């Protein structure tokens, strides 16, 4: 999957570029649905957190960044990894726990890493990676490059102390980091309205004197546009910025989730805002894409994902001598 080579203002996105955004969202959706299938076939173990429904956030935001802007994210990380251009087959191989996986089979679903793609990892301690993002940004600032660190987390993270510590430090030290909260209203199975005194996350960020805004996370073009602007602000040396993307996950927290805590009607209502369906409709109405072209992309992605599964299936498991490898880096 290719990413956008250039990042024009949203109004200047060509038809092809918009189709690319659609294609990326479709790939994530298909990949995730296939991963769920592989989980039920017991090819994938552990926890599997799927990104279905939130594709516009990853694709819109990451397409608006430079390829060498570092990304640190949470454990629902497949969508971000694919949007950054990690190879689907190596991501699938990681889920399968294979040697060829992006993290050599050591990390699994929650810990995808690809340093060549500046994808600095998925982290599974809620809010634990926000301080790391500050540090990577500090390094970039001191090294004098103009990279923007994208740090993605969920609404569950905003009641952790590290959220507040990180925002404060980033603001005081004017660190080039773009914080992005995916607010899907549920921290695992707990409704944000039951556990947060202020449910508008961006308002909590504003307390740390950094620009913060709520945006539509179901709309890929809005995500692209807002991220581009926020990243420009950060890149220009103004310090951190904050976006709260309102979105919804269509599936449970993980594959183990029976979803007792939310009503089916709520999910169904959000499904009407499906970022892929709505964007397809928009592009169809504007004459950018027709059914034939859409179906061709679907077929192409189907094959892509099938190949990813084949690759993962055929790849070797990590040999036992890998058990003790990489606990420490050897002194060079």
């Amino acid at each position, binding site marked *: 999957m290719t990413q956008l080579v250039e990042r024009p203002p949203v109004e200047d996105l060509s038809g092809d570029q918009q189709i690319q955004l659609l294609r990326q969202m479709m790939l994530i959706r298909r990949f995730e649905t296939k991963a769920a299938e592989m989980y039920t076939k017991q090819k994938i173990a552990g926890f599997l957190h799927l990104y279905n429904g939130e594709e516009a956030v990853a694709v819109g935001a990451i397409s608006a960044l430079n390829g060498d802007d*570092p990304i*640190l994210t949470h454990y629902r990380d497949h969508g971000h990894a694919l949007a950054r251009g990690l190879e689907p087959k190596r991501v699938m191989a990681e889920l399968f726990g294979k040697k060829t*996986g*992006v*993290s*050599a*089979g*050591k*990390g699994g679903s929650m*810990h995808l*890493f*690809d*340093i060549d793609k500046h994808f*600095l*990892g998925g*982290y599974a*301690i809620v809010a*634990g*990676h*926000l*301080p*790391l*993002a*500050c*540090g*990577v*940004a*500090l*390094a*970039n600032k*001191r*090294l004098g490059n103009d990279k923007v660190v994208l740090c993605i987390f969920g609404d569950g993270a905003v009641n952790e*102390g*590290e959220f507040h*510590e*990180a925002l*404060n*430090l980033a603001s*005081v*030290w004017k660190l080039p980091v773009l914080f992005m909260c995916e607010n899907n209203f549920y921290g695992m199975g707990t409704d944000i309205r039951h556990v947060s005194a202020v449910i508008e996350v961006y308002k909590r960020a504003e307390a740390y004197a950094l620009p913060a805004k709520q945006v539509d996370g179901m709309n890929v073009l809005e995500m692209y546009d807002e991220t581009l602007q926020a990243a420009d602000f950060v890149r220009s040396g103004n310090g951190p910025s904050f976006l709260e993307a309102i979105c919804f996950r269509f599936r449970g927290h993980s594959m183990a989730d029976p979803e007792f805590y939310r009503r089916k009607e709520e999910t169904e209502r959000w499904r009407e805002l499906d970022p892929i369906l709505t964007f397809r409709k928009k592009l169809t109405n504007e004459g950018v894409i027709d059914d034939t072209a859409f179906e061709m992309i679907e077929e192409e992605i189907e094959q892509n994902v099938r190949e990813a599964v084949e690759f993962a299936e055929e790849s070797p498991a990590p040999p036992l001598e890998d058990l003790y*490898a*990489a*606990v*420490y*880096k*050897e*002194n*060079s």
Partner: protein
Amino acid sequence: MAEVAYREALRMTLREELEADEKVVLMGEDIGAYGGSYSVTKGLLEEFGPDRVMDTPISESVVVGCGIGAAMGGLRPMVELMTINFSLLAFDQIVNNAAKISYMSGGQLNVPMVIRMASGAGSQLSSQHSHSLEGWYAHIPGLKVAVPYTPRDARGLLKTAFKEPNPVIFIEHTALYGRKGEVPDNEYSIPFGEAEIIREGADVTLIGYSGSVYQALGAADILEGNGRSAEVLNLRTLRPLDVEAIIGSVRKTHRAVVVEDDWKFGGFAGEISAIIMEQAFDELDGPVQRVCGADVPMPYAKQLEQAALPSPQQIAETALGLF
């Protein structure tokens, strides 16, 4: 060779590292304008400026996490935490991030950073400033743990810590900061995993690290007065641990007493004891003994605090019980 205090020996290395490598940055609470709560970083802000010597908010977790991220991003950070007791606020960052990022990224990333902190009791600072939790860090694969006793150790081990591509937990002892000792004038380093026989002996091995080496040396004097020759081992690092030195000494003396300020139950002294049992059981003339801190939160009152810490007398008595 000059006589310098432990804190000055540390500062010498910090200054050398700041001078040698632009990528070295120091971060911590009150390390700049205040000069460091134990004066280790005194003068470095004035010398190197606020971009290199950074005062942080009182937010241990983000400070350590920021150090980890900075290391991932290409800097050479050193984070100072006022005491090991406060490091618990950053325990998640140290254990779940610093120690694991190399492994869970399949070796793509590493975390070359030093986290310094002060440990130990003796200053009547009561329960939340006085504990010795070195063993907790030594328990974690992915970390290295240095515990200098002499000023020479302090400078040489810190030098090695700055060369490490892995996270180093560097634990100093509050009671040692002012103690002076001979330190070579030229730059040198002390490798990790090499214990020092700080006093040679033939009848019993006293094993300690950091402040407990001082108590063990005191005990060795008492034992000498009782006609027993004690060998004292200064471990210098807990991870890696110089198992060979421990076993080698026990083969010679056939008796061992492990000394530690930390709580006895579930502590690092138990680990050393188990290693000796596993690897030198037949060499032993008696069970490995442990003299550790009392199993209580540290009390404030002087007399109680002293009673909660291993004393030379207690160590010597324990050793004599082996004959």
